[in-house]
């Protein structure tokens, strides 16, 4: 395949970026999107041009690093996949592909397609955990019976990889799907009950301080989420938050 790539290039966090156009030949339909980017970078280096910086790690849809906004969608046109799982067979010979970083004020661009997503880490630190005494008297988690339906829902929420596609896709740059997944995975389990009130209040407070937008229930986040995290989690977080506020 021969492709025209329009890619956001930005030298560093403070530089002004712009879309640059590159031509790329010999792209196989069997390549993953990141392999195509590797080929492009080899070509650029041969030409003495700075390669395109992009995040990647596991390349199997687990780490959530590969944050690219491809042709107007987070992780590209395919569903339930990350950019590394997107294959070039989803594109046609002669296509023009627009590649941009995830855009949100709390996700500032570091370089080219690499954005700083530590806002998610700070939200997680604010309450996305359970405190367990590890002095040797810790109770085996399996000793606490949990209803299958709750366990399944908690596990579904826990599959969130924190890639940020929800923020990138939402027209309001809202992080509610991410935060609600982290709140839900504990809210559904007995181990999460002790810190439930503080968790939801602190995580939402941190989310707001980071400057993410308001959720207007468009559902774009759910559609673009590579792990299929449901809007049901946002409703659960809303309930948890309202109930926590009433408890004071």
């Amino acid at each position, binding site marked *: 395949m021969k492709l025209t790539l*329009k890619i*956001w290039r930005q030298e560093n966090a403070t530089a002004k970026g712009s*879309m640059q156009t590159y031509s790329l030949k010999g792209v196989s339909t069997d390549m993953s999107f990141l392999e195509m980017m590797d080929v492009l970078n080899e070509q650029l280096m041969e030409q003495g041009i700075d390669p395109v910086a992009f995040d990647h790690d596991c390349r199997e849809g687990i780490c959530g690093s590969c944050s690219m*906004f491809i*042709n*107007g*969608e987070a992780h590209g*046109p395919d569903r339930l996949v990350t950019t590394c799982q997107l294959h070039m067979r989803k594109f046609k010979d002669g296509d023009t592909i*627009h590649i*941009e970083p995830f*855009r*949100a*004020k*709390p996700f500032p*661009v570091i370089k080219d397609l690499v954005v700083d997503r530590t806002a998610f880490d700070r939200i997680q630190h604010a309450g996305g955990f359970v405190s367990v005494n590890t002095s040797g008297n810790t109770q085996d988690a399996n000793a606490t019976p949990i209803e299958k339906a709750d366990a399944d829902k908690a596990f579904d929420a826990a599959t969130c990889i924190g890639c940020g596609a929800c923020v990138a*896709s939402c*027209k*309001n*740059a*809202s992080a*509610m799907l991410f935060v609600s997944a982290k709140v839900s995975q504990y809210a559904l389990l007995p181990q999460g009950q002790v810190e439930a009130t503080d968790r939801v209040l602190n995580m*939402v*407070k941190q*989310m*707001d301080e980071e*400057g*993410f*937008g*308001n*959720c*207007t*229930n*468009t*559902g*774009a986040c759910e*559609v*673009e989420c590579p792990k299929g995290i449901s*809007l*049901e989690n*946002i*409703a*659960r*977080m*809303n*309930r948890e*938050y*309202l109930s926590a*506020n009433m408890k004071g």
Partner: protein
Amino acid sequence: MGFVLSSTILRKFAMALSGLFLMLFLLQHFAINITSVFSETIFNQFSHFMGTNAIVQFVLQPILIFGVIFHFVMGFILDIQNRSARGTRYAVYKGSANASWVSRNMLISGGTVLAFLALHFYDFWVPEMNYKYIEFLPENPDRYYEELVHKFEDLTRVILYVISFVFLALHLSHGFSSAFQSMGFNNKYTPVVKSLGKVYSIGIPAGFAFIAIFHFLNH
């Protein structure tokens, strides 16, 4: 107000609550107006009651006006915050790939309804306030039907009303189920809520449009 504005979730909860309140009012408004189609007397009786009852006039009406203003002001505040949260805009953004036009453009449909409300207030509410509280004219329990019919003799006004009702339907088609989601209601009954939302969002605006067209054709 400050407490409500302090959190994204409280803001959406407040929007949902005010939206549900306004939907309840619309239902009541429609229930009274539809009587004008089949009985001048019943319509006049209801309107006279609503126009002269102290609780309706001095308790419910201010609450309603506050609800309307709150919903619109909050809507604009949220939109400004949301635009700011994006920062740099995308060169290519395919919103239609993952969300409906209606859900992405509540400001357009809501803004149109706001413009309609200005016309509607000019048509009915301002003359009513003038009649009762400025000129202090003697109450005539039979005047309401004539006032209503008179407004819909003008084709341009009927067209403006019908167009506004289309935008109201679009706004409600997302707003109804969205309000329940914002209040934390998303469970096995959600499909029922969505179906109810479709019936309400089409039925009520279509009913209002029918009333306007009926009186235009009937005058």
